[in-house]
């Protein structure tokens, strides 16, 4: 039974690793289909709970798979799930990064590098707006966003942990005050 579950985790998660183009959101639907409906590793409610936990956890939200592994086989299940989720895509990324690095200085590489820069800038800007909308888009959220960005611009020494804590404290005070 034990090996069967571990092999099942690899069989489900390793292909999803390669399918997760654009991040974890791409694999939620197929993962839910496999883990809840087909294999019944977790109940629908558990899957939703795991999804909620991952929003409040550090690290990539595809570690949702590690929670399913934990439910099935404890620490070993979580470990096998994590490795299955990350090794395949990481090998692809490494191969791409190495190829990219090897051709530094070639004219086409310089052109591609220059070409990708504004694309990345546009993506990051769009990401800020999407996350702001996802967070509910309240004045409170907007104020913290602008405040943190301004603080980072003004000071080079600020540590991110301090800023995240400051965000928590401000929201905590707002919550106590009834906002």
């Amino acid at each position: 039974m034990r090996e069967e579950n571990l092999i099942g985790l690899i069989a489900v998660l390793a292909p999803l690793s390669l399918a997760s183009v654009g991040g974890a959101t791409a694999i939620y639907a197929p993962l839910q289909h496999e883990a809840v409906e087909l294999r019944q590793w977790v109940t629908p409610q558990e899957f939703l709970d795991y999804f909620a936990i991952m929003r409040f956890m550090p690290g990539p939200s595809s570690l949702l798979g590690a929670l399913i592994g934990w439910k099935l086989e404890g620490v070993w299940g979580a470990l096998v799930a994590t490795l299955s989720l990350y090794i395949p895509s990481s090998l692809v990324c490494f191969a791409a990064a190495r190829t990219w690095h090897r051709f530094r200085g070639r004219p086409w590489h310089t052109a591609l590098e220059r070409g990708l820069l504004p694309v990345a800038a546009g993506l990051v800007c769009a990401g800020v707006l999407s996350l702001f909308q996802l967070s509910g888009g309240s004045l409170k959220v907007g104020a913290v966003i602008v405040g943190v960005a301004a603080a980072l611009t003004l000071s080079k020494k600020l540590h991110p942990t301090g800023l995240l804590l400051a965000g928590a404290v401000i929201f905590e005070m707002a919550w106590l005050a009834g906002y």
Partner: protein
Amino acid sequence: MEAKAPRVSLAAIYSCFFWIGLFSFGGGLLPWIQREVVNTRKWMSDEEFFPGVALSQVLPGVNSTNISIYVGQHLRGAAGAATALGAMLTGPFFMVLLAAASYKIVLGVPAIQAAMAGVAAAAIGMLLKTAMSAVQAASKSLPPILIMVATFAAIEFFKLSLVTTVLLMTPVSVFLCWPREKPDA
């Protein structure tokens, strides 16, 4: 091996990405990586870093771990990439185990939910600063500015997926930004 960059120890790579992985909530990994790697430790320039951000969007896998692999590979090849990836996942892995044991209690406390929403808002603020750095690095002439605006619009107004957008915009951008002078590197 390129002579330009100083050799960075694997221990330094591990420690850098371990803390980023452990303390990055609400998808706030990219700004932290950019700040540590480019601004604080000066391991790469913005011009070297941000193309990796675009690459990591079209490759399979989570963007933040892909970027850590890109940075690790840039600094120390295969060993650097493996170290960065392992470091990124160590903290979250144990946090997830902890959460699995206690989540039913934690999710029920409104005060904790408020604090986490505050953390998420601050994380978006960090991303805004990263966006400003990217815009600054990209805005050296008119063509990249147009590409930047078009990329933003493709996602926000035309609702194209990230992958489609990158695959669509990159050829146009490379064509427009093709270096006319001899490359300086």
